[in-house]
């Protein structure tokens, strides 16, 4: 029935008023009947198909955080006072003051499920999405990181998922010119059907250039720019488009989104030039829920009203219905609010970068978001009701039935090894502890020329040295005289001299610890990332987090979530580092079996002078090897229990946050005074693995002596510990610094030679360590 213009009429507001009882497919769109009733109450009538599209996506778990909100609030209410925090939770990404007028914005986000369905594209678009979040704050993205979790390394499906995910991250991030400065690769059978792909991006901007997602100023124009809108990721909306009209065109609607990193690179440069030209009043990236989300959020945070003509949205597929346009998750799109006088300049910059752009609407002060299609009003809603007033659930939770038994099954019953040399090699060659070079060699870590530390390092570190003004100027080829980018012929590339300042970033998370005790597990994740930043000499400042859990409708999962958020919020307060933003990923489960609760925590720190950064490991011979922190008999959730016995039980290591804080203070101060020649934090695999990795860093061996039980000393995973290499002449000063802060400090031995020697226990040539460490992943993945 495609006569006439070949286009069906859309369900209009007028029609909705006339057909109040027409059944709408809210359930198919994942909406509960009480939620649907609320929409009707808000509007005083049934919603149109387009309105239902908007409410259903905006009130989805993903966009509204309806199950997590009540718990996430603690990050704000318990947040420590922080002078560095410029923009906190609730914006696209948090912003922190890093000194000298510079600010950094960073955030981590999940793209788990899409990466299982289509690993390459899922992971690639995960990177693309988080990069746009950072751009929308007014920043230049300067680096990415990726925290990954897969099923068992030798599982057949892992061989499909891992190479695809890595290739997706590699192809997208490399093409954007963003150095990849760190991340994690962890294997555990619990992630087999639910791999985790958490991508982090950090951006840099001047403190006074922060942009916000807001649409103020009636009369200002709404511009959609970037890729055209196609039928990507709108599985649900097709139901709607065909529900009220029998329609033949809706058969093929892919759930998979394909990324175009080249378009995103153009968008980055285009946005930066738009910001520099000061032609952007407000800006929002298009991610989940696409145009629905961008228009409702911009309008809700601005003057409160907006009109949009959906016919003006540039389409890749002309058969798209308005409901589908609203829900499309096509990648590489942004929405800006622009003063009418600035439109010519805005469009000229977009043209210069080959970025398609279209004015699709206008800001109003009516308090209504009004959208039209073929001249008819199809949406007329108060935008805040969709963007901010979504449902909030106090989901029931209780401790899992097996939790007490799990905690009672301690590793004490496990047989401890006689041959510790063999144990070390077994751990070092196990997929979780083996070298991740197979992965990281596929990532560009050098582009932008500011990478001070990257793989293999405890934290990635970047020098702050950025061009403030867009430097690439054309002297010809632009017709509009209004173009703000015309520059004199022969202009040299403008630049800011590199500062000495730097930022460091680390992400960590341990699902086994969190499974044993989600409260402590989340704290340990934070403690490890915090420690990884501090061992490089940077002062930890702020936190982002990605909370990966099973179904919130399962009270046992919800308990894990409640405990983890409580633990993380408490630890942030104790350590004095606020949460600036993050992401929740629920429903990571296969059938009724959830993944281990996996809070992944990212910490950002600042170092005044990157020349004072402490490299990872043993960099020279003749250094004193010093262990900081106390070692207890702690094997619950340890890598040893996992590798040697496939055992998970007992309690995770104790999270002593005061000790963690003291350790960081000592590390940062010692770095500032130039006392440390090298360092490495202790985590999975304990001292033995830290020693081995330190030797591998530059091929320098070491001889150390233990005082307690060798197995415990070598393999326990007690937290709040680090290994440092100190020049002999600096040792006294360093030891007294430790004393002043009550940080236990044990001289273990000296660096040098071609082997790791643990006196009276074992000796392993560095080459043998290297062979074991590097062979594992290539053997599995080719």
């Amino acid at each position, binding site marked *: 029935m495609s006569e006439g213009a070949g286009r069906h009429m859309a369900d209009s507001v007028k029609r909705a008023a006339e057909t109040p009882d027409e059944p709408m497919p809210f359930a198919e769109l994942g909406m509960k009947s009480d939620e649907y009733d609320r929409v009707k109450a808000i509007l005083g009538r049934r919603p149109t198909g387009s309105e239902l599209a908007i409410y259903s996506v905006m009130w989805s778990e993903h966009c509204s955080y309806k199950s997590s909100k009540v718990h996430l609030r603690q990050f704000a209410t318990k947040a420590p006072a922080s002078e560095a925090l410029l923009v906190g939770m609730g914006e696209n990404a948090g912003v922190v003051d890093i000194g000298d007028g510079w600010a950094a914005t960073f955030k981590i986000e999940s793209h788990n499920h899409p990466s299982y369905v289509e690993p390459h594209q899922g992971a690639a678009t995960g990177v693309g999405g988080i990069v746009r979040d950072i751009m929308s704050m007014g920043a230049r993205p300067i680096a990415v990181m990726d925290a990954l979790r897969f099923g068992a390394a030798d599982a057949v499906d892992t061989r499909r998922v891992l190479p695809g995910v890595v290739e997706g991250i590699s192809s997208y991030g490399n*093409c954007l010119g963003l150095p990849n400065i760190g991340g994690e690769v962890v294997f555990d059978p619990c992630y087999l059907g639910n791999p985790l792909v958490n991508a982090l991006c950090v951006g840099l901007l001047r403190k006074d250039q922060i942009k916000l997602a807001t649409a103020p100023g009636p009369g200002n124009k709404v511009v959609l720019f970037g890729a055209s809108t196609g039928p990507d990721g709108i599985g649900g909306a097709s139901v709607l488009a065909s529900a009220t009209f029998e329609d033949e065109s809706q058969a093929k609607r892919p759930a998979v989104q394909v990324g175009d990193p080249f378009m995103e690179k153009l968008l980055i440069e285009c946005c930066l030039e738009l910001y520099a030209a000061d032609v952007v009043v407000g800006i929002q990236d298009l991610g989940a829920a696409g145009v629905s989300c961008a228009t409702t959020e911009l309008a809700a945070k601005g003057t409160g009203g907006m009109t949009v003509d959906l016919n003006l949205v540039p389409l890749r597929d002309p058969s798209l219905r308005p409901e589908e346009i609203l829900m499309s998750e096509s990648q590489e799109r942004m929405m800006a609010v622009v003063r009418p006088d600035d439109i010519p300049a805005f469009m000229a910059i977009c043209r210069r970068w080959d970025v398609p752009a279209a004015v699709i609407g206008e800001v109003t002060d009516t308090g209504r978001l009004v959208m039209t299609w073929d001249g008819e009003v199809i949406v007329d809603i108060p935008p805040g009701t969709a963007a901010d007033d979504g449902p909030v659930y106090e989901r029931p939770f209780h401790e899992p039935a097996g939790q007490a038994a799990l905690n009672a099954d301690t590793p004490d019953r496990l047989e401890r090894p006689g041959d510790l040399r063999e144990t070390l090699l077994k751990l070092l060659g196990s997929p979780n502890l083996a070298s991740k070079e197979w992965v990281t060699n596929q990532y560009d870590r050098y*582009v932008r*020329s500011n*990478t001070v530390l990257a793989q293999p390092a405890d934290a990635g570190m970047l020098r702050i040295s950025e061009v403030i003004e867009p430097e690439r*100027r054309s002297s010809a*080829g632009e017709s509009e005289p209004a173009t703000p980018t015309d520059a004199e012929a*022969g202009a*040299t590339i403008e630049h800011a001299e590199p500062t000495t300042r730097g930022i460091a970033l680390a992400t960590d998370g341990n699902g086994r610890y969190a499974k044993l005790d989600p409260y402590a597990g989340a704290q340990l994740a934070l403690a490890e990332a915090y420690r990884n930043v501090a061992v490089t000499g940077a002062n930890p400042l702020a936190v982002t987090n990605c909370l990966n859990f099973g179904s919130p409708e399962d009270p046992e999962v919800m308990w894990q979530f409640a405990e983890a958020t409580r633990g993380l919020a408490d630890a942030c307060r104790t350590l004095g580092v606020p949460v600036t933003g993050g992401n929740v990923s629920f429903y990571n489960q296969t059938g009724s079996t959830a993944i281990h609760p996996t809070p992944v925590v990212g910490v950002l720190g600042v170092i005044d002078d990157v020349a004072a950064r402490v490299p990872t490991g043993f960099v020279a011979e003749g250094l004193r090897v010093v262990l900081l922190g106390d070692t207890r008999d702690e094997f619950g959730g340890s890598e040893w229990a996992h590798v040697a016995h496939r055992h998970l039980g007992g309690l995770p290591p104790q999270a002593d946050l005061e000790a963690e804080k003291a350790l960081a203070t000592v590390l940062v101060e010692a770095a500032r005074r130039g006392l440390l020649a090298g360092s490495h934090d202790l985590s999975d695999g304990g001292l033995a693995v830290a020693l081995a990795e330190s030797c591998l860093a530059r091929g320098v061996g070491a001889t150390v002596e233990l005082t307690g039980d060798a197995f415990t000393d070598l393999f326990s995973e007690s937290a709040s510990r680090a290994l440092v290499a100190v020049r002999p002449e600096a040792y006294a000063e360093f030891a007294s610094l430790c004393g002043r802060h009550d940080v236990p400090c044990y001289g273990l031995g000296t660096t040098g030679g071609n082997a790791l020697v643990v006196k009276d226990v074992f000796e392993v040539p560095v080459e043998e360590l290297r062979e074991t460490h590097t062979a594992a992943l290539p053997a599995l993945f080719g």
Partner: protein
Amino acid sequence: MSAARVGVVTFPGTLDDQDAARAVRLAGAQAVPLWHADHDLKGVDAVFLPGGFSYGDYLRCGAISRFAPLMDELVPAAKAGLPVIGTCNGFQILCEAHLLPGALTRNASLHYVCRDQLVRVEQTATAWTNSFASGQEILLPVKHGEGRYVASDETLAALEAGGHVVFRYVGGNPNGSLNDIAGIRNEAGNVVGLMPHPEHAVEELVGAPSTDGLGFFTSILKNLVNT
């Protein structure tokens, strides 16, 4: 007398232009931005075609860029003797533009590779390598997915016979290049292309653990002063 002026070209998708400009400045020259859409070389003394993913590396690396208006100016200028260097994507563009023979294809490993790579300087008689000693081994990062140099047997034989292979990988070939070729030059020696990145090995603190890349920039300065 003003400093030597080295043009640094930006195509859509170029990534290492800032880095190249910084390296040019570190060496004491002036970096002049050249925009792909301009028909204007701005009177520069030499041109650096930096790495990246121009046009997303779509179709083939460098295939679309070589049609840029700027290339209409650059190709005749290079043929007339203007010193030009292309690194990584810049090398690919030079091959696509037929300023250098052969082609760069998908790495034999089928993976993108980023690593610190030892490279032997085989030829110092070029505008960009005269500061090096012949046979000198230098450490530069490679980072590319399509760096495997291929050419017909005749071309390869001619390159070798003429001494036009300027750089060779040593201690492992990262991409399967024929004859371990990392970089080549044209007949006249003013046009050089290589896959490794000198601009990422110019400062102690950042990039690869080496400052060997500086030699490229001191070479071109020496060359410009001498002419």
